[in-house]
C-alpha cells in the first residue's frame, strides 16, 4: 500500500517536472529546444539499456538495430495507414518488442561475449536491409513528417509562457519530454516490482535464481522484450524529430553511443541516464567548439565526436570499472 502511494506521488512529481520543462521551452532558442528533444530520445534509449544490462545483466551492442526496426515500423505505419503520430510511436514500440522477443530466445541460449557478438551483428546487418527492399526507401530512407503543429498546442496557455514562435522543433520537444518522463516512471515501477527483483536475482546468480523458482530463460526473454520495446519507441521518436528513417541514422556508432551513455551514468542508474543523454547531445557541440578553437578543419570537426565518445567510454571504464555494481550493494 505504502509503495502504491509513493509511486503515485512520484507520478505527480514527474508531471510537475514535465510542466516546468515544457514551460522552459518558451525561454530558450530553437536549437536548444531541438537538443532537448534529442536528450529526451536518448533518455528513452538509455533506459532500455539500463533495464537490460543494468538490471537483467545481459549485454546488447545492437540496440541501434532495434531502434531502426521501431523507426521503420512507425514510419511505414504512419505513411501507409495514415494513423495519428501517437499511434505510430506505439507501433514503433510494439515492433521493437516483437523483435526483442525473438532476439530474447537467442539471448536465452547465449551469454557474455557470444551475446555481445550476436547483437553486434544485428547492429551491422539490420539497417542495411533498407537498401535491399524498395518499400524501405533505400539509402535515402522514408520521410516521417507529422505535419504542422496542432492549434490546440500552439494556442494553449502553456504555449503563451515565454516568447518566440511555436516551431515544429518546439512541438517535438513537447511530445518527447513527457514520453521520456513517463518512460522513467514506468521503468522504475517495473524495476522496483516483482519483475525487477527477478531480473536482479538472475543477474546476480542465475543458478541460485532458478533454485528459488525463477525461470531464467523466460526472464531473459522478458528482459529483452521490455528493453526492445523502449528501444523501438526511441527509434520511432528519433525518426519523428529527424523527419526521416534512413539506414545511416541507425549506424553502429549509434549502438555504441547508447552503451557509452548508459555506462557514463552508471549502467544500473535509471536517473543517471538523463545525464548520460545530455552528455551525448553535448559532445558534438563541444567537439565543434574545441576543433574551431584549435583551428582544425571541417573534417576534424566531423570526426571528433566519435573520438570523444570512445575516449569517454574508455575513461569511464578505467575510472569506474565497477560502476554498474555500485547500486547493487543497495
Amino acid at each position, binding site marked *: 500500500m505504502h509503495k502504491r502511494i509513493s509511486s503515485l506521488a512520484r507520478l505527480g512529481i514527474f508531471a510537475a517536472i514535465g510542466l516546468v520543462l515544457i514551460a522552459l521551452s518558451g525561454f*530558450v*532558442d*530553437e*536549437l*536548444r529546444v*531541438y*537538443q532537448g528533444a534529442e536528450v529526451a530520445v536518448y533518455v528513452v534509449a538509455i533506459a532500455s539499456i539500463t533495464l537490460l544490462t543494468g538490471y537483467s545483466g545481459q549485454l546488447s551492442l545492437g540496440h541501434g538495430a532495434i531502434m531502426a526496426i521501431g523507426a521503420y515500423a512507425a514510419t511505414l505505419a504512419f505513411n501507409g495507414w495514415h494513423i495519428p503520430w501517437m499511434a505510430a510511436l506505439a507501433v514503433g514500440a510494439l515492433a521493437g518488442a516483437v523483435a526483442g522477443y525473438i532476439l530474447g530466445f537467442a539471448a536465452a541460449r547465449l551469454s557474455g561475449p557470444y551475446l555481445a557478438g550476436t547483437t553486434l551483428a544485428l547492429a551491422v546487418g539490420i539497417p542495411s536491409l533498407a*537498401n535491399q527492399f524498395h518499400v524501405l526507401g*533505400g*539509402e*535515402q*530512407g522514408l*520521410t516521417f*513528417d507529422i505535419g504542422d503543429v496542432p492549434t490546440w498546442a500552439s494556442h494553449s496557455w502553456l504555449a503563451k509562457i515565454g516568447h518566440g514562435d511555436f*516551431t*515544429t522543433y518546439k512541438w517535438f520537444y513537447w511530445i518527447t519530454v513527457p514520453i521520456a518522463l513517463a518512460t522513467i516512471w514506468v521503468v522504475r515501477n517495473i524495476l522496483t516490482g516483482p519483475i525487477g527483483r527477478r531480473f536482479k536475482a538472475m543477474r546476480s546468480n542465475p543458478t541460485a535464481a532458478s533454485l528459488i523458482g525463477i525461470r531464467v530463460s523466460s526472464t531473459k526473454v522478458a528482459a529483452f522484450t521490455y528493453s526492445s520495446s523502449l528501444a523501438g519507441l526511441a527509434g520511432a521518436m528519433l525518426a519523428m524529430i*529527424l*523527419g*526521416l528513417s*534512413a539506414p*545511416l*541514422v541507425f549506424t553502429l556508432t549509434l549502438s555504441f553511443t547508447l552503451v557509452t551513455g548508459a555506462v*557514463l*551514468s*552508471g549502467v544500473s542508474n535509471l536517473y*543517471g541516464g538523463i*545525464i548520460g543523454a*545530455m*552528455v551525448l547531445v*553535448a559532445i558534438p*557541440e*563541444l567537439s*565543434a*567548439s574545441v576543433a574551431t578553437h584549435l583551428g582544425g578543419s*571541417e*573534417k576534424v*570537426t*566531423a*570526426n571528433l565526436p566519435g573520438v570523444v565518445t570512445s575516449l569517454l567510454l574508455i575513461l569511464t571504464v578505467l*575510472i*569506474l570499472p*565497477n*560502476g554498474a*555494481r*555500485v547500486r547493487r*550493494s543497495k
Partner: protein
Amino acid sequence: MQVQRSTSRRISIAFAALTALALVSTSMPANAFSPHSEVGVSGSTIKLGISVPLTGAAAPGYNKVPYAMKAYFDYVNANGGVNGRKIQLVIKDDAYSPALAKSVTNDLVLKDKVFALVGTLGTADNEATTKFVNDHKVPRLFINTGFSGFASAKKYPTTFPLFPSYAMEAKIMGKYIADNFPGKKVALIYQDDDFGADALKGFATAGTTFVAKIPYVSASQSDPTVVGKWIGTIVQSQADVAIMFGVSSATAAALGGAYKAGLAGKVQWILGSVGSDPTTIKTLAPTALPLLTGAIAASFLPSPADSSDPYVKLFQDVNAKYNNNAVFDNNVLVGMNTAMLTVQALRAAGKNLTRASLMAAISSKGSTWASAAFSPILYSGTSHVGYSGYWFGRLSGNGDSTPVDGAGKYVLYTTDSGSGAVVKATINRPALPEKGLPNN
C-alpha cells in the same frame, strides 16, 4: 563501495556541470549587437552556409567545391566585397548522408545563423532538409543536384536549383544516342534513388530502350563484388554503349572494373555530368584511364582545360591565387561559377539585404546574370528552373573534354524536364564582367 559511489556521483555532477556550461556558453548569439535586423547579415559581413560531403564515398571531387566557392568569395572580398560587406562561408561535412545533412543544416541555420544556404549537395540530402528550410524560409541557392523536382516553386519555395535536371540530361543523352548510335545495344548503370529515378524518367521520354538496367545503392560502389556484378551484367547483355549515371567514385569503380574485365575498346562509355570529372576518376582508379580516354561526357559548363574560355581563364587565375592552386577540374569550376552567381544575387538584393529581397532578386533578374554555362538561366517569377542544356565532349586522359565535333565547337542541346523536344540551340552567353567581378 561507499567511496566508489561518491566518486561516481562527483563525476556525474562534473559531467552535468560541464554540459550545462557548454550549452550556455554556446547559446550567446554571435551578432547580438548587429545594427542590421536580418539573420546572418551584419554591417560588415554576410554569412552563408554549405553542407557537402567532405568525407565518405561521395567526397572525392565534391570536397573541392566548397573551397573553390570560398576562394572566389575571398577574391570578391579582397576587391571590396558586396555592397561593403564581406562574404563568409561556413562549411559543414554531411558525408552524403541525409541524416547528417539534416543535423548539420540545423546547426548552420540555428547555431551559426547563416543568412542563406548555397550550393548544398545531393538530391537525398537536400530532400531531407527541405521541410526545415521551408519552415524557416531560408533561401537555398544554386543547389548542387539536378533532381527536376526541386524546380517546383510550390514545394520548394526558397530553393533555386541551378543545374539542368537529370531528366533533361537523360532526354538529351537519349536523343544523342538515337542520332549517333542508332540500333546499338545500350546498358545503363544508375544510382537507385530520386537521382536515378529522374534520369529513368528522361530516358523514357526520349524513348531510349536498354538491354540492361543496373541500379545500385549509393556508397555500394566501394564494394568490389557489387561492381563485379555491374560489369558481369554489361558483358552478358552484349551492350555496345554503357551509360553511367552516378557520382564520380561510382564512375571510377565502373571503368576500373570494366578495364579488368577486358572491356577496353569494346564498349562506348557515356558519362552523366555528375560523375564525369576526369581528374577525380583517374585519381580514384588509375586503371580506368584507358577507358576514360575516348569516353563521351555530357557537360553544361565549358571544359575546365579550355583556357581560351574567358570564364575558365578567370577561375584558373583565382584558383591559383586564392585556392592554393588546387588541381583545376570540373568541381573547382562548378564551385567558382556558383559563387559568382551568388555574388550577383547578393548585389541585386540591394544594400538593405534580406532573405526576401534575395529571393525576389533571383526571380526577377537571375536570368540576366553572367555565368560560365553555355545554356541560358530560366529563372523568372514563375520558374525556378536554372540551366537547361548540355553539350557532349570526348574525354582525354589529361582531364580535357573536347567537343565531339572538334575543339571549340560546342554544340548545345536544350530541352525541359517534361515532354518538350530536344533542340540544338545557339549559344548566347553573357560576357564575363571586367576582372570577373560582378557589376550588376
